[in-house]
């Protein structure tokens, strides 16, 4: 069901030096990503789950080339990482320049990367694809709700016709009643644009809904990598089990918690 490897990640580590807390001792280092190895295949949808500080976002930044690995390699097998790998972030408020009109925001990657094509037409198609009215183009980000701003951010990510979309907590900052819309939209776009999706989330139910395969991260390491169905049916690592047991559901009632 999935094609050749688009990303080949080999034993990658990324360390950060922590702020110095004492004159006598050397500053401590934090290994945010610790010897991580995996492949991302064309057409698949890969979930990355873990708690805060587990290294999910650093791993995303390594894939985007925003961080350099201290150890190991991140290899993109496509033609152009800059054009073909795009990202959507958690907070659509800080991700959009408040002084730019939506049309300029969405077309910025096309402009920066000097991509050919009819920009007016591209813009119309993208607004349509993410379910925004055509009139949105002339408006500014503050005129939109959180869910609509996330649609703008998704349209911008799609503008250079990427092969890989990295979504880092794309619905965590949104109202509950709007989340399902954005998840459905990502699912539709994945099919419509034949995207390879990497979805980072602390929310296991979101990953289960969206992804074929899951990496579970804990303290920088991938402690379990499995097909989604297998992972949720029979988690092997005890951390994965703890994580699964911790998630409240509508059916798991009070008896379970007391």
């Amino acid at each position, binding site marked *: 069901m999935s094609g050749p490897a688009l990303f080949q990640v080999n034993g990658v580590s990324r360390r950060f030096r922590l702020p110095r807390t004492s004159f006598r001792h050397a500053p401590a280092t934090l290994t945010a990503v610790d010897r991580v190895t995996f492949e991302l295949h064309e057409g698949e949808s890969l979930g990355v789950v873990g708690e805060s500080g587990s290294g999910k976002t650093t791993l995303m930044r390594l894939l985007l080339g925003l961080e350099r690995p201290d150890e190991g390699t991140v290899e993109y097998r496509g033609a152009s990482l800059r054009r073909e790998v795009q990202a959507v972030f958690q907070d659509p408020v800080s991700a959009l320049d408040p002084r730019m009109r939506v049309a300029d925001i969405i077309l910025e990657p096309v402009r920066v990367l000097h991509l050919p094509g009819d920009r007016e037409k591209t813009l119309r198609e993208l607004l349509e694809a993410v379910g925004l009215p055509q009139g949105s183009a002339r408006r500014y980000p503050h005129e939109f709700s959180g869910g609509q701003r996330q649609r703008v951010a998704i349209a911008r990510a799609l503008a250079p016709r990427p092969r890989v979309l990295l979504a880092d907590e794309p619905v965590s900052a949104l109202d*509950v*009643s*709007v989340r*399902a*819309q954005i998840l459905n939209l990502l699912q539709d776009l994945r099919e419509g644009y034949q995207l390879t999706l990497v979805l980072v989330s602390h929310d296991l*139910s979101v990953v289960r809904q969206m992804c074929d395969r899951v990496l579970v991260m804990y303290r920088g390491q991938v402690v379990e990598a499995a097909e989604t169905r297998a992972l949720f049916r029979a988690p092997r690592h005890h951390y994965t089990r703890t*994580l699964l047991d911790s*998630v409240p559901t*509508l059916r798991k009632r009070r008896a379970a918690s*007391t």
Partner: protein
Amino acid sequence: MREPALEVRDLRVRVGTLEAVHGVSFTLERGLRTGLIGESGSGKTLTALAVMGLLPDGLGASGSVLHEGRDLLQMAEIELCRLRGDRLAMVFQEPMTALNPVMRVGDQVAEPLRIHRGAGRGAAGRQAVQLLERVQIPDAAEKTRAYPHQLSGGQRQRAMIAMAMACSPDLLIADEPTTALDVTVQAQILGLINRLVEEEGATLLLITHDLPVVAQVCEQVMVMYGGYIVEEGPAAEVFDGPRHPYTRGLVDAIPPLDQDLPERRLRAIPGNVPALGEFPEGCPFRNRCPRADWRCQVMPALAGEQHKVACWHPVA
């Protein structure tokens, strides 16, 4: 019906010229755990702040909030101060901003005992250690001397809970107490709140946007949207058979974690949550509701026996 711990009647909260909470009435029965569910703009936090007399300047509340026969809204600030931290306690979402950054944790946890119980420095200090032990903070004696930034997020929230429970309050209001925490820590904190509330026989009002959290902790649930309570009832009934189209939509929109095969598409609620002042007249949900018609231009009353709903066309 048990004795009420808190009776709220026709509570309205104004933000400038806009009304954000439109005459909300509810009763918290003593010893019960009630969840108040709502999204941004639903008025859930304003309701809680109004109950505690903690509304920021410029916001006004009217109606009545009865606690042991006295109306908290009519009470002088000095009297409210005697109740808050003693009979009424509150836990906030972000413990880093709720705790005083330049005061040792032990002193903060012991503060309610010093103020309300007249405890001396030494006695309060010893009790602070016990309180931190009770919320399962490791090395409690040592942690009383720490400052908030030296604790982890989960430990800070535990310290907040220890402080709230110090004087064994009748009513604990917890506003999104676990939203900023990781799921494994969230499970521990919810378990802790559950246990303490049970041990003390306290009444809990748990405010959150997260339905599964309420399902796990509460016996009763109220759902707010656009400044109204739109549905209310026993948690099991509301989650198994939601009657308001908004509640139904919320329940359907959560990706199920405990069902076998998730469908690839979720049933989403259309539209967005309007900003304050931009909700439609009448039922605030009618511009997003599949069942809305001309009748919905007037807001229906919250009606029913145990399980109440405010809708002209409730889901069967």
